[in-house]
């Protein structure tokens, strides 16, 4: 696990730099209070009363995230399979074809139901 010590060191440097920047940005800049400046930016008009709480989003985003999880899981299985592939050969190929075929059924279903269409 020593391989992760350098990553922790690099992460610490990056984190330190980011936090330093944020603190420095607050200190070096001017502070001139102006009520309008602290409002949400909406092209110069008065901000709408409840931009976030009442705002709802197309369910498409949820479906996209769901599809993403499915394919991400597929990728996670593909990686060890690919690394180990030369020992598996035809057997591994058949296994993965079966796995991907099932997922292709899902994929075709989503496509047919318009889950991949954005308009």
């Amino acid at each position, binding site marked *: 696990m020593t391989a992760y010590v350098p990553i922790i060191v690099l992460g610490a440097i990056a984190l330190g730099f980011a936090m330093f920047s944020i603190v420095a940005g607050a200190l070096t800049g001017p502070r001139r209070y102006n009520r309008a400046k602290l409002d949400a930016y909406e092209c110069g008009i008065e901000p709408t009363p409840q931009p976030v709480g009442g705002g709802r*989003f197309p369910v498409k985003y949820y479906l*996209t995230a769901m599809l993403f999880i499915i394919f*991400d899981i597929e990728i996670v299985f593909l990686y060890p399979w690919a690394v180990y592939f030369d020992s598996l050969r035809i057997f591994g190929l058949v296994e993965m074809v079966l796995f991907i075929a099932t997922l292709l059924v899902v994929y075709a279903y989503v496509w047919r139901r318009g889950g991949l269409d954005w308009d």
Partner: protein
Amino acid sequence: MTVEVLFGLLGVVATGSALLVVTTRQMVHAALWLVVTLGAVAGCYLLLSAEFVAWVQVLIYIGAVVVLLLFGLMLTRAPIGASVDLDASMAQRLAAAVVAGATAGVLVVSLVDAFRGEHIALETDRPRGHSSAVGAALFRDWVLPFEVLSVLLLAALVGAIVLSRRDVSEPAERGVT
């Protein structure tokens, strides 16, 4: 010794942030504490030299599942600040605490009983968590579960489609798009 100490620390972080997930009154913050919990668990895997599983945990759970949760929150509403209307009643809290405590008790007792005092040496030179080792185990010994998993994924996605389609088609029937 260092590994044990680090493992314990990560465990404390995981448990502490898990408690914050259920106690914070801000929904998006709860999702963020969940990220911390899952990250700490990934750290535990890493300490057990299960490298592959650790990064899969980060990729799938942090990078995908909690993103889905956040999308779900923003899909409905994710107000900034505390959401008081989501507060559970005292009875609900008690019930939740009892259920959580009982589950934790069962898990702890059964795990402690199963592995009492047993030490499994970490294979640091060529660890079990190595991706080709995972590949060998998965695609030689556990072929059937792997294939069945694809059916599970199929069911999950069909469910998602059915749910979201109903959501989409209902306003359309009322003439609102």
